[in-house]
């Protein structure tokens, strides 16, 4: 009987781990506002930079480089719990659950430029942050079958293409 309880407990722990939201992985959010950590809150992360480039790779992926990137990344949630905070980008890159098999969804949003080429929905992986050079590079892959909810606003504005090089401000929203 004791053995059954151990198995059940193990299953429960595995289930909890599998259903945990990757967005809640970093410690800075779990202690963000009092008892908030006890509730299920999905965060969107917003990263800001000044300029960047998008270069094609050989396998349908692209290398996104963002220059003059802010050393802090903002996390925020929508109603009912409208909470937000910021965490050092270095810590976020280290702590976030980057999964190459199931990459996170993101929206690359240019602040200026043609509205037909200013928003791209991508899957994001392999981030590399260079604090000294204030740059972030990552592998992105444009995709069409977004089935999440946090990036809906940007998916509705998604464009078929994005500028190769851009200036005037760029935002990266990561779900």
């Amino acid at each position, binding site marked *: 009987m004791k053995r059954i309880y151990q198995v059940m407990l193990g299953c429960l722990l595995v289930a909890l781990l599998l259903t945990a939201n990757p967005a809640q992985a970093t410690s800075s959010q779990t202690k963000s506002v*009092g008892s908030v950590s006890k509730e299920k809150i999905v965060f969107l992360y917003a990263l800001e930079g000044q300029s960047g480039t998008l270069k094609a790779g050989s396998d349908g992926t692209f290398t996104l480089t963002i220059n003059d990137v802010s050393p802090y990344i903002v996390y925020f949630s929508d109603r009912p719990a409208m*909470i*937000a*905070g910021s965490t050092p980008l270095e810590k976020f890159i280290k702590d976030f659950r980057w999964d190459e098999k199931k990459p996170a969804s993101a929206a690359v949003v240019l602040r200026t430029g043609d509205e037909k080429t200013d928003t791209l929905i991508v899957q994001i992986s392999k981030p590399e942050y260079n604090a000294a050079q204030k740059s972030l590079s990552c592998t992105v892959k444009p995709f069409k079958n977004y089935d999440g909810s946090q990036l809906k606003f940007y998916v509705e504005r998604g464009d078929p293409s994005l500028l*190769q090089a851009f200036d005037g401000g760029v935002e990266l929203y990561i779900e």
Partner: protein
Amino acid sequence: MKKFIPLMILISLLIIAATPTPPPSTIVPGVAGPAKPQQKIDGRVDLKAKFLFVQEGDSGELKANSDGTYTLKINGVLPHTIFFSERPATIAGKLAMDSFVRNFQWGGNGVPFVNAAISLRDGKENADTLIVQVRKPPQYDAQKNVITYVVDPIKNTKNKRLAYFTGKADASIPQTFNAVGLYIDTSDPDQLCGNGRISCYGGMDMAAVCHVECGRTQSELAQCFWVFTGPGCGPCKSDMQQASSECDTSCANNTSMACKNGCGLFFPYCTSR
């Protein structure tokens, strides 16, 4: 004649260098969504997104004043104020703290005071959230990373964006505390913005070649509004459309290579970040 050749080459090079660079080609396939609900001009859209603002600190204290108000002091405050919006526009970013403190409409003189929620990160559940009204603009000390407010605790607020905190508000919080977030609400984000100036650019750097500033020789005053994509303060869409049109017309008629089709809008004085 020969001695003019180097000069002509030099002038040609200068003109080529001053000619506006065409935008880079677009390459990346992505998701083709439906028509965008907002028309954007020069990166800005008149979208009335409603924002909450957040300031974060390592510790703080709340001490009673003799007039019934309280002094809220946040230590180790980060040098930025976060802004984020609710659905449908899930937008977020940061504003430089000194700029935010200076430009935010804090109320008074007929304008309603701003409401805020003090939220303690590691506090006890029955003493970690307090709703307050901010009674005057805060004092920000960038050297010491301290921001100080005069606040008045209130029982409730009708501000929808603070509803989450109102729902879990406590009667009091400790006098001293550790990590804290201050959530600031405002009913009208346009309160953030003052007047700005619109002018055209293109040719200004090469005035000797162009002798033109693309139509508007002097910048013009314009009311700035809180707008999407930035986000930040910018001229309203109609002002931008008119100015953009004037710039284009002016440049199209200009025969100088450096100026032709090279006009853009320039509005550096809108108060925001």
